[in-house]
């Protein structure tokens, strides 16, 4: 559907919901996440971190979307910072 039409219908739906008094938490726009990182710093962080525990896993092994969750999984596991995670995701997706 055209973006404008989609927005129109979506706003209408939201207005109806809000008007009916049902409390909602508004979802964010798709595509605005994850914020782009810096691929050069991502390459560095990848080289520094991704062989600390296991063999290197390379970009073509997984799809772009899979790299998002995998990198967040590794963020928790390896104590990466949020910035390193975004940089690594961007680097992986660009190398894919």
């Amino acid at each position: 559907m055209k973006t404008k039409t989609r927005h129109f219908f979506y706003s209408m739906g939201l207005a109806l919901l809000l008007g009916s008094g049902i409390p909602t938490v508004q979802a964010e726009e798709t595509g605005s996440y994850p914020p782009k990182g810096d691929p050069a710093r991502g390459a560095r962080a990848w080289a520094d971190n991704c062989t600390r525990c296991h063999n290197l896993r390379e970009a073509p092994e997984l799809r772009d979307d899979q790299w998002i969750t995998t990198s967040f999984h590794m963020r928790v596991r390896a104590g990466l910072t949020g910035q390193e995670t975004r940089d690594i995701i961007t680097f992986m997706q660009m190398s894919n």
Partner: protein
Amino acid sequence: MKTLQRHILSSAVAGAFTLTGTAALAAQDDIATLRADIETLKQQVESAAEWKRPNSLIHMAGYADVDYVDPDNGPGSFASGSISPIFHYQYRDLVMVESEFEITTNELGENEFELEYLTVDLFLSDSAVLVMGKFLSPLGQFRQNLHPSWINRAPSAPAGFGHDEAAPNAEVGLQVRGGFPVGSDGIKANYAVYIGNGPALEAAGGEIEMIETPGIGADDDGNKVSGGRFGLLFPAQKLEIGLSYATGQASVRDTAMTPVFYETGRDYEYTGFDFTWRPAPFDLRGEYAKQEVGDLPGSAYAVNGGAWEAWYVQGAYRFGDGKWEVVLRLGEYDTPDDATDNEQTLVGLNYLFASNLIGKIAIERNDNPNAGFQNDDRTLVQLAYGF
């Protein structure tokens, strides 16, 4: 010019003009159609690319292994190995649910199903993640980072780093973990601090037999344990060191009574140290882990506490285009009960079909000088795949 000729010529010119006019109109139509097509295409591309950056992600990963174990003092047998599927559900950079199961078939042919971990991770800031639920113990490195079979360079866990031995396995509680840069040389710190239900103690024959750390789902003894690990990473030197500590109380539980009876708590303490040094093509790692429980005068189960202590050092060397790897691991496990002590040496050879598909063969020597007899030495074969 003859009239006829003139006519022919003028009609030809007129005809040509008409044609060009029609062509121009047709071209305008085409352009409009093309524009519309491009617009539609743009939207389709936009939607098609949405999967690359969706708000909600569902992801499956995990690992599996199949094994053959040949002990010196018994028949060799195939082991079903295990499959450990991991499921992730993530909403943007706000939250992720992490879960892993382990499914295996035991010696009796029965299937075992375990929840390895299940947590809700809230990404609080760039340097802190709140992890709540059942998680792998954040103490040390083997249990949380190295035990999956496609990661472990040996087909077995080091002595004392298996289930309910010196290194705690899992915890049910709350932890905050993350990392931050220290100074300017690219040095990084990572940390994990937690509070959880803590372990349970099993006693028999007037002694504490083991400290159970499967991640206990309720704190029926009312004694929490808290602690954590602090790690420093020196990327230029390819070096990481970690220090772990936890403290609290733990109780002997009597599962023969209904309801299960929990004795008064006694002191519990964990201390650990780990390192990784990776000057390629070498990979050297080591870890020390000690769990200690205090005495409890007047205890009906076990007056004396004790210490469960283990260490290992492991060196691996890659050769043959990085496809082959030799591994040497030395370690020791020391418990209050001499019969379960173990001095272990493992020598192994691995073939890497891919970075996440590894064939391993190893000879594991287990000695128990304290008990005056030889434990079972084993030959282990394993094929491990991380996906």
